[in-house]
């Protein structure tokens, strides 16, 4: 796959703060590229530089094999974006917002297409309502429609699930996955909702204090053999007792009466079958190994050390 975004040695200095420090990464065409970092890690500044909102101090950005600095307008015609909150014109209707942004996106968008976009994000029946009457989730969905209305090849989403309820988060996630799978769009998405990134992204970059910590595919970054599975039953103490004599005992973690295992993710179905066979009533199964553990181990360890010193 050809590279769609190539960032090389990117840095941004805000007076005394180095927000981004010698950052390099590549996004391939068709990727859902997860951009992870704690608050203040430099994600939004990097995204703002990719969208020319913030000027880079040093480094180069090439998008669609063209230098962003010299081909800005040409590149932005093929990019759709949401940066943090989807702030739109509150005194205009959803249709007016979408129609206006479509007009200035450099491509002709027919009215039919605008309505299709509103339908896609589930806002067709509220097309004529002013945005000020919308909930946060509706604004977020409208923001996505604005980002997509001109059919961009590259979609850049900075924290698109911020402030959404679980259903809203799931809707946005499905939309992004659909855009990638069904329409071949390339998506760069930043979030601190780590489990969300895990569910969507095929490639992941983790940054901290403006620096790249690690970049790779989700499979490369995660070790499935170290998945932590937490199980809740109607009687955990009795379940632990029964398990001590079973082969699962060696995976059992000692955790204050809670039923926790560490093993390969693929073994979860066998464990559940065995627990059912032992007449243990299961209330919930939660695999907790995830990018979150990995992410926290990478980004918090140095802080803990520093704090200890």
């Amino acid at each position: 796959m050809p590279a769609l975004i190539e960032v090389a040695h990117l840095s941004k200095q805000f007076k005394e703060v180095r927000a981004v420090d010698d950052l390099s990464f590549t996004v391939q065409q068709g990727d859902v590229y997860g951009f992870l970092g704690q608050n203040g890690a430099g994600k939004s500044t990097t995204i703002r530089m990719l969208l020319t909102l913030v000027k880079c101090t040093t480094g180069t950005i090439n998008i669609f094999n063209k230098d962003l600095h010299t081909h800005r307008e040409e590149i932005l015609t093929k990019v759709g974006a949401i940066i943090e909150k989807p702030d739109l014109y509150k005194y205009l209707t959803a249709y007016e917002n979408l129609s206006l942004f479509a007009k200035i996106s450099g491509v002709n968008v027919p009215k039919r297409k605008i309505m299709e976009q509103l339908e896609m994000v589930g806002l067709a029946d509220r097309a004529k309502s002013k945005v000020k009457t919308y909930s946060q989730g509706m604004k977020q969905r409208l923001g996505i429609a604005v980002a997509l209305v001109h059919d961009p090849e590259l979609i850049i989403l900075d924290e698109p699930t911020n402030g959404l309820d679980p259903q809203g988060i799931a809707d946005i996630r499905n939309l992004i996955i659909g855009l990638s799978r069904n329409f071949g769009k390339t998506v760069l998405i930043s979030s601190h909702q780590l489990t969300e990134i895990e569910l969507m992204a095929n490639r992941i970059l983790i940054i901290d204090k403006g620096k790249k910590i690690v970049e790779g595919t989700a499979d490369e970054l995660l070790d499935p053999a170290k998945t932590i599975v937490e199980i809740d039953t109607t009687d955990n103490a009795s379940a632990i007792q029964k398990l001590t004599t079973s082969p699962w005992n060696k995976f059992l973690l000692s955790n204050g009466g809670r039923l926790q295992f560490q093993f390969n993710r693929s073994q979860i179905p066998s464990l559940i079958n065995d627990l059912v066979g032992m007449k243990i009533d299961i209330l919930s199964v939660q695999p907790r190994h995830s990018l979150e553990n990995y992410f926290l181990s990478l980004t918090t360890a140095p802080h803990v050390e520093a704090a200890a010193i």
Partner: protein
Amino acid sequence: MWKLLQFEVFKIFKKPRTYIAFAAIAAIVLLIQVALLINGKEYVKFMLSSLDDTLDIPYTQIRNGYWICFAMLNLLLIHVPILVALVSGDIIAGEANMGTLRLLMTKPISRAEMMLTKFLACVIYTIMLLIWMTFLSLVISVVLFGTNDLVVAKEAELLQIEKVDVLWRYIAAFGFATVALIVVAALSFLLSAISENSIGPIVATVSIIIVFTIMSEMRIPIYDNTVKPYLFTTHMLGWKGFFYIKADEDGQTIRGSIQNLPAIMKSLAILGGYIVLFVGSAIFIFKRKDILS
């Protein structure tokens, strides 16, 4: 650029705040017109009381649509800048505050083009405001009070302009006032480019105009030849020059004449220079600005 201009003008006229200025002008003008319809004679007497002994024109002849329009322009053109700043001070800073500026700047529009278009939208709003003011203060006044010769006081001098010689002067005066108000729009536009909320630029514009107007009006020798000639507020009232008609040796006014056309042209050039300076600075600053809102 045309699409972007449509976008900007559409946004301006979709905001309820925009109509405050139109409503304020309508309220002031209509109140004055009603008052003059009822107590016009007394008002004319009061306004020309210092010239009472020399005045040989009947009051009813002085109180006509043209005279009322002149009186209202004197009053309104000092206060309209505040109304202009309401929109132009908000045009960038308001978007930064609302968060829409960053979305706008992710679109394939150059920063200079966006700034120029936003400024043009302010100019269109200013022109619309003046057209509205012209309609109310000139057209409605002429309909209500009729037309006659226009009597204008210039310091201790009284000038009488024949009614057939008045209309073109109003057209020229409104044209001049448009340029003067565009300077105000350009100033608040510049302040808007460096601010993150719209209240700051609006208040700052009004404050600058108040300070400069006071300096323009002060009769202090140290300012007269140094600062005053360069303040835009000194030149903003240059529209009155179109009504200062020449008189011949017998004291008869000369139709179609203006006492000091070069002074009017000089004021226009200075105001034009201010527009270029303010808008140019706004574009220069904005092009280098990191959008962090």
